[in-house]
Structure formats: C-alpha cells, structure tokens
C-alpha cells in the first residue's frame, strides 16, 4: 500500500463524520458568534449564554427538564431492577414475554408510543404535564435500563445470594447487602444513560407535555419555528453539553469499575497454590 494517499474507505468515512458532526459544530460555534443575524463571524461573545440564562422561560424549562429526567430515571430503575430479578426466576415462557415487552418498547417508533399515550390520556381527560411526560419517558427508558441490569445479572451467580440467606439474611436483607451492591455498577450506568435520554427527548415531551409543561428541547423547537436566534444555539449547545457529560460519566464508571475488577461477581478463578 502506498503511504501517501489515504484509502477510499478512509476518505468516505471521513466525509460521513464531517457530514454528521459539522452541523453540531456550527451550532456550537454560532453560540459564541457576536453577529446576531448569523451571516458571518462577528467576533467572540458569551452574551447569548447570558441572555439564555437570564430568560425566565429557559430557566423554567431547564428545571422542568431536570425534574422529568430525575423522576423518569428513578422510576425506570425500579422497574428495571424488578424486571431483571423477576426474569431470573421466571419460567421460559414468562421470560420470553418479558423480553418481548422490553424489546418492543425500544423497537416501536417513539412517535407511535407517544401518540398512543396522548390519545389514551385525552380520552380519559388526564391533564398533561410533568407526570405524563415522565410516564412517556419511562416507557422506553425502563426498557434500556432493563437491558443493562439484565446483562449484569447474567454474569452474577445466585450462589452468592444463597450464601447470604444461608448465613441468616432474610430476603430483603439479601437484596440490600448482596444483590444491590453487586448490581451497583449497572445501576449507575443505567441511571446516567436514562438521564441523558430523558433530558434530550423531544417527541414524547412534545406530545405529553401539553400546555403545562415544557422541556428545553420542546422550547428549542418552538423557538426555531419563528426564527433562529443566536440564543437558540446557546441553549442547544447547553443541552448537548449536559447530555455529553452524563454520557461520558457513564463511560468513566464502566471503565473504572472494569479496572477495579468488579467483574468479580463471577467467581474468580482460583490460584493454584498458597502464596509462601
């Protein structure tokens, strides 16, 4: 192979990445652009961020977004851990049913799920707001969380829980002292993942928020309908940053836990000899 020319596949891959990430880069760039018409580069400024931060609507929507994300994550984790633990004990048919319902919630188009929920809630005159958005987010987030918890459970032998029971721990204490600590890495990863999914969700939040609750992504959609202000870029960059940081944290947790050897729920291979 000649060294001077990059291979065609490399070039193609590079182009795809440029195409994918350039628009996002431009949004971030423009959030610092002093030219309010966004026609050219008008110099560096932080004023769009301070505008956004001082805007009551933006601040209110930020709080709503965080509220929704935290609630949805909490509920999703409870569902995921219960589903995971039950799935271990379930018979093969029940287990298939559980798996099917998990995958369906991921595979079905979000817009369809959201619409269906919207129609049902309207049919029964449920007021739309934070609780309904949370319910909508839980539908898919609990499914992702379930997959993560199940993956962890698959590597854990039940003998540790049997040992705990054998040593005198009643079922609830077995869960608290053995099962939950061993599941913790997966719980943390699932939490960070669902937090970020919930925080930047648009479709479900839009359908189920009604006029009472508005999250940041919904606000952004509303703003660009009129005209794209530099403030929009600042808000979008903020949402991106929060999502990325949460996501990166989960990656850090995974690698740290991995390095610390918390694969140990599998019983470690034994050393052959006593150390001297």
């Amino acid at each position, binding site marked *: 192979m000649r060294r001077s020319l990059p291979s065609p596949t490399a070039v193609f891959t590079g182009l795809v990445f440029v195409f994918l990430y350039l628009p996002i880069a431009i949004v971030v760039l423009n959030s610092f652009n002093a030219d309010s018409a966004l026609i050219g580069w008008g110099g560096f400024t932080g004023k769009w961020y301070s505008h956004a931060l001082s805007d009551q609507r933006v601040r209110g929507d930020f709080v709503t977004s965080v509220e929704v994300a935290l609630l949805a994550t909490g509920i999703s984790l409870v569902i995921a851990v219960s589903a995971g633990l039950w799935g271990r004990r379930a018979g093969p048919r029940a287990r298939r049913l559980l798996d099917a319902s998990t995958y369906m919630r991921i595979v079905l188009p979000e817009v369809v799920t959201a619409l269906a929920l919207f129609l049902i809630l309207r049919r029964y005159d449920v007021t739309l707001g934070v609780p309904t958005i949370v319910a909508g987010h839980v539908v898919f987030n609990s499914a992702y969380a379930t997959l993560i918890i199940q993956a962890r459970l698959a590597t854990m*032998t039940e003998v540790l829980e049997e040992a705990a029971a*054998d040593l*005198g*721990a*009643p079922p609830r*204490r077995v869960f608290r002292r053995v099962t939950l600590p061993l599941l913790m890495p997966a719980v943390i990863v699932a939490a960070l993942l669902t937090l970020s999914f919930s925080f930047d969700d648009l479709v479900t939040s839009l359908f189920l928020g009604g006029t009472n609750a508005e999250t940041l992504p919904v606000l952004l959609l509303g703003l660009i309908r009129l005209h794209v202000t530099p403030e929009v870029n600042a808000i979008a960059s903020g949402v991106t940053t929060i999502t990325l940081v949460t996501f990166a944290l989960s990656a850090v947790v995974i690698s740290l836990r991995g390095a610390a050897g918390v694969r*140990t729920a599998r019983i470690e291979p034994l*050393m052959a000899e*006593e150390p001297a």
Partner: protein
Amino acid sequence: MNTPDPRGDGIAVTLEALERRFGDFVAVKGIHLEIQDGEFFSLIGPSGCGKTTTLRMIGGLEVPSSGRVLVHGRDMTWVPAHRRPVNTVFQQFALFPHLDVFENVAFGLRERRVPKQQLRERVAGMLEQVELSGRERARPRELSGGQQQRVALARSLVLEPEVLLLDEPLGALDLKLRRQMQAVLKRLQRDIGITFVYVTHDQEEAFSMSDRVGIMKAGVLEQLGNPRQVYHRPRTLFVADFVGASNRFPASVLERLPNGRLRADMGPLGVVEAGGSAELQPGSSALAIVRPESMSPDGAGGIGLSGRVIDIAYLGAQVQYTLDAGELGRVIALVAGEDDAGDTVAAREHRFTWPAERMWLVPA
C-alpha cells in the same frame, strides 16, 4: 442458640422419606437417614446422584417435594434457609466479592445483631483458628484458593451452627492443597465437635475424614456404613465399583450357612465359602469381589488363579500386575513394596492367591 439437642437422643439430622422431583426427573427418591451428633458424615456418589440436592434440602436452599427434614428433632422442612441452625460451605466458596475478609466472616453475626465488641472478638478468634489473622482487610480476590476456602469455613463456623454442610468444598483446589485441607477440616471438626455433613464425589477424600459414609446412586441411598464396611462389604456391585477398583468373578450361591456366610460355586475357582450381601439367596447368581490389593503373588493359601502377566506398572508404593486369566478375564493385582518378582513373573504364567475372607459376594 446452644440448646442443640432437645430430644437428647444424639441425632443431629433426620431425613424422613425425603424426595425431590424436578418435573419428571426424580433427583432424590425417598431417602431415610439419621446422622449422629458430632459425626463426620459424607454423602458420596457420581455427579447427578442427588447428593448435592439432599444437602441443599438440609440447608433449606431446596424445598423437598415430599418427606421431612429434622435438625435435632425439630421439623425444618418448611423453615427458610435464613432461620435454620445449619450453615453451608459452598463448592466455589461463594465469598462476597464486595466485602473484605472481616466483613465476609462478620456477615452472619451482623444479621444476628451481635454487639460490636463481641462481633469483633468472635471474628478475630475465628480468623485465628483458620490461620488468617492479619488478612482482615483483604478482598476475596486477593486470596489464594486455600485462603478463600478457609474464609468460607470461618464465615460459617463463626455462627456456631448445629450442623455444618459442606458441598464439595475442596473441589476447586489442587491435589496437594486438598490433602492439606482435609487434615484442617478433620481437625476443626474434632476441635469444635459439631456435626459435619460432607458431599463429595471423591471416595478417598470421604473415606479419609468420615466416621460414616452414604453412597448414593440415581437419587437412592445405596449403602450406609463406615468406610471399612463399605469398602470390604459392599451391598451392590455399584458400591463396590464406586469405592474402589475390584476384580469380579461370576459365582452362583448354593446355600447360606448358619454362620451367615455363603457357599458358592465359582466354576474354575471351585466351591468357596465367603461373606456376601444379605440380599443373596440360594440359587441367585452373584459376583465375587476381590480387591486388587488382596491378591498376593506368593501363591500361598486360600483361593487362587493362574494367568499370564501382560503388564507391570510401577506405581511407587505399589506394583500393579495385569493378568490374562483365560476364561476369568483380566485380573488386576496390587502388590505392596519394592518387589523383585516383577522381573521374574513378566510375560509368564503366574499364580496369585487371596484368602477367602477377602472375597465378598454381591448380586450380579
């Protein structure tokens, strides 16, 4: 907790018609068993014979399909594992990876809300007994197999159980360490004086430690007895085979003598008088079991056969001869010690003999 024997009849564990089915598969078929207080009792058998399931039913980790489990006379059949006065040492130790050695050993004491000071003393004392003082803060993964094994033991023994259940606890260790740990186990059991119920597929291991053994096959307790009885007076061919190598010769029972022994026709070996399984009746066909180490090459006394020596294997403490004994088939003889006979009997006809009392008849 130390009111272990309310009935005072010295029986630690009683199994009554204990049965466990998994769907169509019957793992344990109506076992009756009484294990004495302070006894070292082993359940042995090939994998899948139901020995581990039986142990788990004593521990409360498995629910019987029918029958009862009693510990010191108290019905434990429906008592959950965490409320039974027994503890288990698991095959792979099952130490808690997220807890250090101290906390692993303290686990059960914390469940019992033992006061702090006392807890610390009991854990320290136990760790000293298993020679792990100083390793309190180590995680299980930082320990060698033998050390993990001792933590697992300490974790159970610190609770002073009425019965300790051990499920192939040495299976994960290499041979040399296993021998060492056998000695440790036997010593601990003698010192503490509690009842051990031990499950293993290794009959030698069971024999070396146990007061009594029970041999299981396909969910049934085939024979119960001390190692010597089981080895020399097996009830069935299965037991004879499982506990050691043997030579077998066909025989047909002629009569049961007043002294309980049997007179049997052994074809080319003649009519002999030997002990045998109680199930044998006059007229039943039997197999005579002769352990290889009972055969002697000097050609003196008792029953004997001649055969061509086709293989000599030097095993160190013993020499193993393989004979082709014509219509009696292959015969194995183990001869103790350094033996010059090896050179002289090679590839020749040679006569091996054994005393009649070293022969035992089982149903064919």
